[in-house]
């Protein structure tokens, strides 16, 4: 069976790959222990709160403190630059191969084993028009958006997901419904279909559907699945209006989706998931942890990510209580332990919700 690197088209030249290899290392250094910004800035924040005898208030107060520090401003400059460098290199390298890559997508559109259902009359809601993570053109305005996203996430995951290992691991944690029946699976906002194919491999007899609003993402998802022989279907649909029948799915899945939705659409999407997931079925979610329990630096980092890394909805998501929204829409949510991280909780969390 083929693996992810073979489905990712090569860059135009070796130097482009070397450049992005550098960005990957730079990212690791800036955001990790190399530069150690998190420990040092969080230490300064906590010492200040301790010496003045009161905890930090709203994130604006934290922001003012961090921005008064040269180290804080430099950290922001570097964090922004590594992201800009990444996209500039990927966009240029794939852009130079636009004709070939477009032809490559067209070659696979009609091939099986799965189906690709695009809607020529599809209208993108305004809320989707965001350049998440600073991706040029966002998720759908460039016909090569799926390829850009694929390489962008390769750098983001720093080599840990080159063979979809992260997706396979996450899909592997999703509990099977207690009656053992898994005939149909829905992957909401599937992007390039890495979770969708992982579900197909875990439940090869199930009918797996990946939906997304972005046609360029879906075309790459379909191409990847077809190249790897995975019989997964992909359709251009909205997560809040999937078009599937009531109680149709045994498992519904949302991988890092909700923090990219405004609150109104979060509510509508949970309601839609409750409609299409059958009783006893599972709605599995993997997304950002809430603001509660975060260190001052982590709260700052979330704010920075929202404002400076194209995540306008993530703050509202982190401040909402997704578990309560799930419960209000007919799901029973299993308690998910929060991972620990220096100074606070981890950044990611599972929700495993059973439709009751």
């Amino acid at each position, binding site marked *: 069976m083929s693996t992810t690197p073979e489905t990712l088209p090569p860059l135009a030249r070796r130097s482009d790959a070397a450049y992005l290899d550098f960005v990957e290392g730079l990212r690791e250094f800036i955001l990790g222990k190399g530069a150690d910004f998190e420990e040092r800035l969080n230490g300064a924040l906590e010492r200040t709160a301790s010496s003045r005898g009161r905890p930090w208030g709203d994130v604006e107060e934290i922001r003012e403190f961090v921005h008064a520090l040269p180290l804080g401003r430099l950290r*922001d400059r570097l964090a922004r*630059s590594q992201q800009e460098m990444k996209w500039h290199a990927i966009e240029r390298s794939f852009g130079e191969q636009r004709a070939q890559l477009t032809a490559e997508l067209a070659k696979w559109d009609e091939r099986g084993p799965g189906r690709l259902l695009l809607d020529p009359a599809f209208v993108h809601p305004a*809320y989707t028009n965001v350049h998440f993570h600073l991706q040029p*053109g966002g998720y759908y305005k460039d016909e090569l958006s799926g390829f850009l996203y694929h390489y962008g996430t390769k750098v983001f995951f720093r080599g840990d997901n080159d063979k979809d290992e992260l997706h396979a691991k996450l899909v592997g944690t999703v509990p099977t419904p207690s009656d053992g029946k898994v005939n149909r699976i829905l992957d909401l906002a599937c992007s390039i279909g890495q979770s969708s194919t992982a579900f197909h491999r875990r439940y090869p007899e199930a009918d797996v559907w990946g939906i997304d609003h972005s046609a360029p993402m879906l075309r790459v998802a379909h191409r990847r699945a077809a190249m790897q022989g995975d019989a997964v279907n992909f359709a251009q649909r909205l997560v809040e209006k999937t078009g599937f029948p009531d109680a149709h799915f045994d498992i519904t899945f949302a991988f890092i989706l909700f923090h990219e939705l405004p609150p109104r659409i979060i509510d509508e999407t949970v309601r839609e998931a409750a409609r299409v997931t059958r009783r006893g079925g599972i709605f599995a979610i993997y997304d950002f942890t809430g603001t509660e329990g975060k260190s001052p630096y982590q709260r700052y980092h979330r*704010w920075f990510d929202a*404002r*400076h890394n194209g995540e306008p909805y993530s703050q509202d998501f982190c401040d909402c209580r997704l578990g309560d929204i799930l419960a209000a829409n007919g799901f029973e949510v299993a308690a998910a332990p929060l991972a620990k991280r220096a100074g606070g909780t981890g950044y990611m969390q599972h929700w495993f919700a059973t439709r009751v």
Partner: protein
Amino acid sequence: MSDRAQTPEGGTPIVGDDPVYLNDPIQDATVRMLLELAAQVWVERERRLTLEALLESKGIVARDEIERHIPDAVLAARLKDERARFIEDIFKELRRVSLNR
């Protein structure tokens, strides 16, 4: 970057294209150029190490031949193009320094 117009529905306002983080835009441009320069140095080093390893393993070129080599007209023209691209990569940051800040 292409088509920067965005229409998020509320939430945290997204900063514009070229935010200034440091004391003035020149400092931001300097850091960007430094990062770009470091990237280009790595690209060149990776290329050279790969090439030298290949050449030596095949017994084609000794290292001192590379040191003594004089480019012909075709290679000279190619190097000129590559140099222009190298300079563009690093110093494109200068175009992002706003007149108004």
